């Protein structure tokens, strides 16, 4: 409990610190959003000044920071205000309209990534020195070193262009109305296969290599040798004694991957014209739409922090050394 409370207070300060950095980062850009407002909306100077006032950009930076902390850190749900480039739509609404697609793609990819990476890692370690391990390792290194956009194009060319088994873009067929029907669900599933595959193929090797190497180390532990000497079944040794210990770092990786994947998915969403937050965030960064940028990274940071706490919890459950330490 003490361990957990200590961790909780630490992550809270880390979270606030990260949000303060997030507040300052976009403001380091050489031009402010007023330049964008004036050019894109062809607004007269007076209108730009009014908008600056409405967005609070005319206030001293310290006041802006305090207001930000008040609205984002100490308020739930946080209030990021209006999107500059989609004014008068609120950031919350614009992010929420895109987020479900990204969360669906990310969570499903992450699950498959974890399972695939861990299971193949276990098999590779178990069959160490065989052809199977060699092939799996080679594939893992190939996928790990492939840029995700390149791999995405390869998948599109092979599965959408040559064999035409999966659609190359979008979240569902444009001619289907987005209602909760089997046809719509089927279309969503079909459209998510290739982007999901692109993410899984580039992320799973990290789990594979981690689990494989850890398994190899754990195989040499005394208790494993003892189990072997006692004549315990090989399958039981691998899955009950070795894998359970070797999976600990993979669980940590899973926690940190959530935030990273949300950011890393931007490229995949761009190539597959997927309507998640990817395009939204690219537009927001290019358009100096600070509130949307902050809203997006708030999610990444908060998710990262939550996953770090969850990982700690899982550690407590699966590793008694942490519980009693």
């Amino acid at each position, binding site marked *: 409990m003490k361990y957990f409370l200590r961790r909780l207070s630490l992550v809270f300060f880390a979270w606030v610190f990260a949000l303060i950095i997030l507040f300052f980062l976009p403001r380091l*850009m*050489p*031009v402010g*959003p007023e*330049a*964008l407002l004036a*050019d*894109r*909306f*062809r*607004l*007269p100077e007076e*209108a730009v000044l009014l*908008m600056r006032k409405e967005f609070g950009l005319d206030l001293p930076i310290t006041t802006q920071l305090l207001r930000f902390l008040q609205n984002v850190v100490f308020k739930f749900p946080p209030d990021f205000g209006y999107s500059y*480039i*989609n*004014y*008068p*739509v609120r950031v919350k609404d*614009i992010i929420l*309209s*895109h987020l479900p697609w990204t969360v669906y793609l990310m969570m499903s990819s992450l699950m498959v990534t974890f399972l695939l990476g861990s299971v193949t890692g276990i098999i590779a370690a178990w069959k160490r020195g065989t052809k199977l391990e060699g092939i799996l390792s080679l594939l893992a290194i190939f996928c790990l070193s492939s840029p995700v*956009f390149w791999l995405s*194009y390869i998948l*599109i*060319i092979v599965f*959408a*262009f040559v064999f*035409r088994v999966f*659609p*190359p*873009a*979008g979240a569902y*067929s*444009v*001619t*289907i109305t987005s209602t909760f029907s*089997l*046809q719509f*669900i*089927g*279309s969503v*599933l*079909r459209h998510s296969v290739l982007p999901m595959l692109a993410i899984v193929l580039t992320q799973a090797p990290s789990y594979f290599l981690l689990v494989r190497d850890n398994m190899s180390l754990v195989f040499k532990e005394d208790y494993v040798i003892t189990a072997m000497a006692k004549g315990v079944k090989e399958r039981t040794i691998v899955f009950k004694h070795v894998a359970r210990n070797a999976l600990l770092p993979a669980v940590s990786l899973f926690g940190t991957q959530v935030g990273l994947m949300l950011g890393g998915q931007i490229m995949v*969403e*761009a*190539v*597959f*014209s997927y*309507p998640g937050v990817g*395009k*939204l965030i690219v*537009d*927001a*960064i*290019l*358009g*100096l739409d600070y509130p949307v940028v902050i809203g997006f990274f708030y999610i990444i940071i908060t998710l990262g922090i939550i996953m770090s706490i969850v990982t700690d919890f899982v550690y407590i459950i699966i590793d008694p050394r942490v519980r009693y330490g």
Partner: protein
Amino acid sequence: MMRKSVWIVVGLIVACLGLAAETSRPLVIGLTTTGPLLFVEGRLDKAAGPALMMSCITPLAHQRWATVDPDGNFVPLLAEAWTISQDGMKITVYIRKNARWSDGHPIVANDMLLTFEVLKKEPVLDDWGLLPYIENIIALDEKTFEVRLNRPFFPFIQYFFEYFPIPSHIYKTAENYLDPKTLEASETISSGPYKIVGFAKGTTTIRMVANEYYWGGPPPFPEVIIHLLSPDAFVPALMATGQYDIIEVSKPAQVAALLGLPNVLVRTYDTRGFWIWNMGVWTGILMNNAVFPLSEKQFRQAIAYAVDRGKILEIAAMGYGELSSMGFHPARSPHVAPDLPTYPYNPDKAKELIQGLGFTMGPDGIWRYPDSGKKLSLKVQARAGEETLVGSLVVEMLKAIGIDATLETLASPVYVSNFNVGNFELGVIKTGQPDIVDFLMMKFYWPTVVPLGETIHYRGWIRWADPHFGDLLEKYRAASDPEEAQKLSYEMQRIIAEDLPFIGLYYGKYIWAYNTATLANLEITARYDWPRLELVYGLRRP
């Protein structure tokens, strides 16, 4: 039990995948676009977003008074007819009797009066600088209005017809119209063949259905779906699915794969319908004429000789385009002045010109400034995409003549801001460009040079001004005799080609892919036939 559940889930997934098969569908258009989608129904003066949206989406729902066909002839749209007085000072516009908004309310003269009030209240919305010429706009009756000018301006109606009527029965006053808070409250209302029934900011699909009150009768497709695709989308795979009827191809490198597909026709166009004009896409180099050595004509000419424009066209646009004349028009344009200097690629000549300015060649092959002995360095700014590709080629070509050139790829707001305040040396720009003499001459010309550090919008970016050129421009705008106008245009082009305040590189082609299976009963053509849809998408009924 566990195994059974897994099989049930798998079975359900397979069933769903099967059900996702296509049924009959409307016209589906894919547009590759960058930037956020900000499409404000019924409020087009405030609509902002990628030019593609303005040219390919808004014309379907919001119509103007008239348009121009590819031959340059006016085609009446919401206006049935118009008359221009002998002295060109009075234009009377007769609105179609059956022109209605999509809510059934008639389009009336007051709608244009409200547009004028809005422009007066916010002159910054006056894109084409017409306000200084307009004395007044009055309603003669419910369906007729008159525009009175205070001085002659002969290309006036070409611009004037671009200003949308605003539904006065909804907005009532200019203040109400301009209040940003009313943006979301406005109901979907259109004057064109389609009305928008499915769109929210930030989404990627726009659904339009036929406007039952449209004066021109039912459009050829009762429903149109526009899908906004990422610029990175692989168009050949999208066309191969058969889901799309038309897609604009933003990457010429994808054309080869498209050509191998059955039922796909690839067409290229020099221009794309954009408001009343046919819009080409011009790529050029803007130079900051206020900083040395770019302030020297001889140096700017050296850069023109150093740049192999043909090679840039071949590499950056894969040959899909044509070289720009140095007078700014596409080389094919009937408006190009004869005998303009062409500046063929000649690095030796470029070096000779630089040497003539007193620069000396350093031991490292880089020129040194005459007084300070500093290296001659130039920064080339560009945005991501084709501009950066062009920029990298320009940098290599400048290095080849001894200039220490570097490329800066910038986010669009930073890039624009640099131009605004003059914080740049060279900038690669790709921009929509109509082949209208008056507008071309105005494009990058501002009559006074705004000092570096002070903000000026795009017409003054190059910080170059010539009183004689300004005088010719004013005379051109007032010229009623076509021969005189042409003479003035030629003279202005010669000034630009001689003085080179900027360098035109090429006009790119627009590339469209058509699904010939689903569009089998339509003729795919570049000719004008049916208002807008044809002009924009090149379709017509045989």
